[in-house]
């Protein structure tokens, strides 16, 4: 491996900007770190270059641990966003700088410089000052300068940001060509997905300091695992659907999924439909793909090669639910059509059309949507505006439904609504909260989010499960939740007091197992802590230690639930996500 990152974490002003990133980049690979601004990608690149230290974790270049090696001794080539050419030196002096530092002879320096200038196609400009060059030429000089000392790794920090589209494309080709010619391992940071697709052997998508997913461009585009990647890499329609044995049920109609998601149980999922996978036709019979619903065309925009449409789905119980809609009436399905399709069926705004879906991809994420549940509609409405819940729904691009249960918490009372609980149910944290939680869990709620009135977005998430049956689901829910939070994950292992002396290594063993399962199965990096004593008591104590924490707790049985959790839930100042999976 050329570059190995192991649990790299970097904090700034208390909040993690790079959060537990582990990554292997192979020899000669062109790896692109893609993410919106503020996602931590540039910080990660600077950490690899040694320009910024890490708070935790390990960085190795070609097997050599360089975590504590100074930038000048790492032997990497870094190209800066704004070139950072030495403005008072000529092109020749700029390129030879690294060689001069290494006391190379003038003759050899000149030879290497000629070689590099040829490589970036800038022969003859040796004696120019940077100010006399165009932006594109300056960036070529910056690349040549970074390559002069034959670094083992080339790092590029948004190298095309300041250039116009045409030069950008030309430079992209040059850099790709140089990279292939030299076979040098390269990491490029960008926020431009088109650039990432064009250049990368492999893309790693970052958001909120986490490396969410990585893979070949094509795989990431067609099989994203997270909402963020699905919507950041190109446009996507997110639809709340049910996963059934027959396929993906959206509204009244069922479409076969591209690949079956894991798990057999029927549950709510998030389906991704790319705009180019949507088909529109005059009638249901004219569709060549699976029928989804009818809709009205709101908007037609001509964009050159493609035409893009916004189609509003017809209302009614049969209609599929758009995840992004979040209650407002304006949401509509995005559709793009090629010239060929346009010629076959011309469309005008206001037209009613039948909608079909060619390909559906189901996200493996267990957190699909939220339902704010309270004793009255007014209370449920108030809960749906709770800042943390609203923020989470916004970040997860999903909707918050409302549900009134007048009998909430009354023992032996039945549910008011006969529809099942779907997605994550949210309730307010109050005095008899533990009892209400048990009431809901016993009536079919699987994932339950308990929200105090003033909870902020957490900076640390504590994870714990009671009972092996809940283990996998808890880890999956944690991984999903943490993708949307800029928070660090900590697994808190708790053992009864007396076992402390008896089997200390047994406890450690369990912690490490939990950590490696989280990493392997869910891509979740987490730290571990070990405590002894009563579970609920220890968790409550740990939560009270610092502000801005959240708890995700897995539960496998509901015996004496309210009693056990009273101290943790009733009037607590922290949000708690309860994941209930009973033993089969």
């Amino acid at each position, binding site marked *: 491996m050329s570059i190995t990152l192991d649990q790299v974490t970097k904090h700034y*002003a*208390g909040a993690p900007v790079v959060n537990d990133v582990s990554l292997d980049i192979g020899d000669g690979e062109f790896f692109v770190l893609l993410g919106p601004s503020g996602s931590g990608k540039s910080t990660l690149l600077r950490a690899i270059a*040694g*320009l*910024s*230290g890490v708070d935790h974790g390990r960085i190795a270049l070609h097997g050599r641990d360089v975590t504590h090696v*100074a*930038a000048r001794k790492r032997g990497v080539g870094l190209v800066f966003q704004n070139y950072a050419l030495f403005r008072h030196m000529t092109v020749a002096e700029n390129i030879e700088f690294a060689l001069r530092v290494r006391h190379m002879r003038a003759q050899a320096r000149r030879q290497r410089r000629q070689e590099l200038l040829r490589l970036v196609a800038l022969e003859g400009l040796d004696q120019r000052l940077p100010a006399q060059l165009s932006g594109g030429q300056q960036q070529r000089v910056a690349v040549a300068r970074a390559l002069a000392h034959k670094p083992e790794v080339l790092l590029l920090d948004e190298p095309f940001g300041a250039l116009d589209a045409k030069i950008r494309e030309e430079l992209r080709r040059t850099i790709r060509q140089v990279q292939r010619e030299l076979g040098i391992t390269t990491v490029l940071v960008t926020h431009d997905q088109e650039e990432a697709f064009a250049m990368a052997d492999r893309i790693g998508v970052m958001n909120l300091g986490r490396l969410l997913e990585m893979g070949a461009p094509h795989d990431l585009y067609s099989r994203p695992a997270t909402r963020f990647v699905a919507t950041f890499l190109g446009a996507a329609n997110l639809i709340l659907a049910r996963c059934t044995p027959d396929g993906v049920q959206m509204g009244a109609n069922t479409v076969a999924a591209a690949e079956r998601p894991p798990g057999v149980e029927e549950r709510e999922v998030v389906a991704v439909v790319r705009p180019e996978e949507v088909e529109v036709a005059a009638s249901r019979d004219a569709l060549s793909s699976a029928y989804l619903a009818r809709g009205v065309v709101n908007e037609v925009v001509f964009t050159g090669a493609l035409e893009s449409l916004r189609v509003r789905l017809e209302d009614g119980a049969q209609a599929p639910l758009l995840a992004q809609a979040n209650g407002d009436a304006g949401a509509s399905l995005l559709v793009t059509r090629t010239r060929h399709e346009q010629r076959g069926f011309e469309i005008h705004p206001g037209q009613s059309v039948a909608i079909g879906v060619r390909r559906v991809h189901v996200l493996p994420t267990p957190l699909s949507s939220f339902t704010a549940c309270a004793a009255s509609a007014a209370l449920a409405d108030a809960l749906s505006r709770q800042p943390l819940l609203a923020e989470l729904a916004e970040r997860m691009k999903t909707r918050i439904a409302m549900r009134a249960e007048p009998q909430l918490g009354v023992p032996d009372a039945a549910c008011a609504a006969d529809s099942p609980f779907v997605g994550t149910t949210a309730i307010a944290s109050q005095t008899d909260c533990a009892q209400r939680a048990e009431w809901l869990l016993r009536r079919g709620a699987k994932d339950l989010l308990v929200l105090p009135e003033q909870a902020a977005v957490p900076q640390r998430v504590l994870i714990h499960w009671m009972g092996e049956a809940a283990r996998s689901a808890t880890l999956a829910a944690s991984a999903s939740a943490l993708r949307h939070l800029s928070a660090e994950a900590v697994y808190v292992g708790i053992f009864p007091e007396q076992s402390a002396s008896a089997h200390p290594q047994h406890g450690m063993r369990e912690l490490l197992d939990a950590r490696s399962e989280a990493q392997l199965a869910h891509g979740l990096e987490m730290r571990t802590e070990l405590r002894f004593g009563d579970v609920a008591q220890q968790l409550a104590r740990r939560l009270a230690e610092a502000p801005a924490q959240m708890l995700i707790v897995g539960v496998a049985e509901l015996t004496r639930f309210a009693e056990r959790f009273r101290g943790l839930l009733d009037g607590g100042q922290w949000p708690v996500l309860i994941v209930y999976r009973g033993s089969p």
Partner: protein
Amino acid sequence: MSFRQPSVLPGFGLTFGFTTFFLSAIVLLPLAALALAAASMHWSDFVHVVLSPRALGSYRLSFGASFLAAAINLVFGFIIAWTLVRYEFPGRGLIDALIDMPFALPTAVSGIALTSVFAQNGWIGRYLEPWGVKVAYTWLGVTLALTLISMPFAVRAVQPALLEVQRDLEEAAETLGAGRLYVFRRIILPTVLPALLTGFTLAFARALGEYGSVIFIAGNLPMKTEITPLLIVIHLEEFDYHGAAALGVVMLGISFVVLLAINLLQAWGRRRHVKAAH
């Protein structure tokens, strides 16, 4: 949080150490001597020196003339800055460079030159004489000298702010039908107001401490044309160190208040700016 955020650049210990050491040795230690000298005085002695009629007279002149000079510069500083920023005319570059002259020119030179220009037989003084206006050796002369030496501070404070008044804001206002005066009153003035006030305060602070240029043109009559810094020098020449230190502490205290005012004004200006940006 640690004292310093980590950085890849070397040399923090060396440069920070040298900076703080040198600062302490050259600036802070001597200033502490001043505070201690004043503190070692008996309270009644302190009051006696600080509130003596001669001292009070010098405050009146120092503050009055400095305030007047700063006010004059508020007006003329704005006009000059506006002219330099908005109008193109021959010699503009030269004038722009000359603005800093009083800053680079030794104060003694300004003093003797102003005195000879505004003396009764001087180039300008001789034309003022028939009108009964005496400048040299009166409080007018003091004000004039202070106006000259504090002028660059007022102009340079306003100039960048005027440059920053974005033309497109004005143009937007004009396309919305606003007249020139209205644009000036509602767009330009509010934007440069914090800078104007900063310029005023800077000029005032600078004028308050001025010594070199004033003593030549002032005449230095006790109670009439004697400024506070001169009174300090007189105390020193009589080896009355405590009296000098007491007056020095009073002046320093006032300078600090003025500095504080500058900082608050700048913070206010920044806040307005930030708000406007949102």
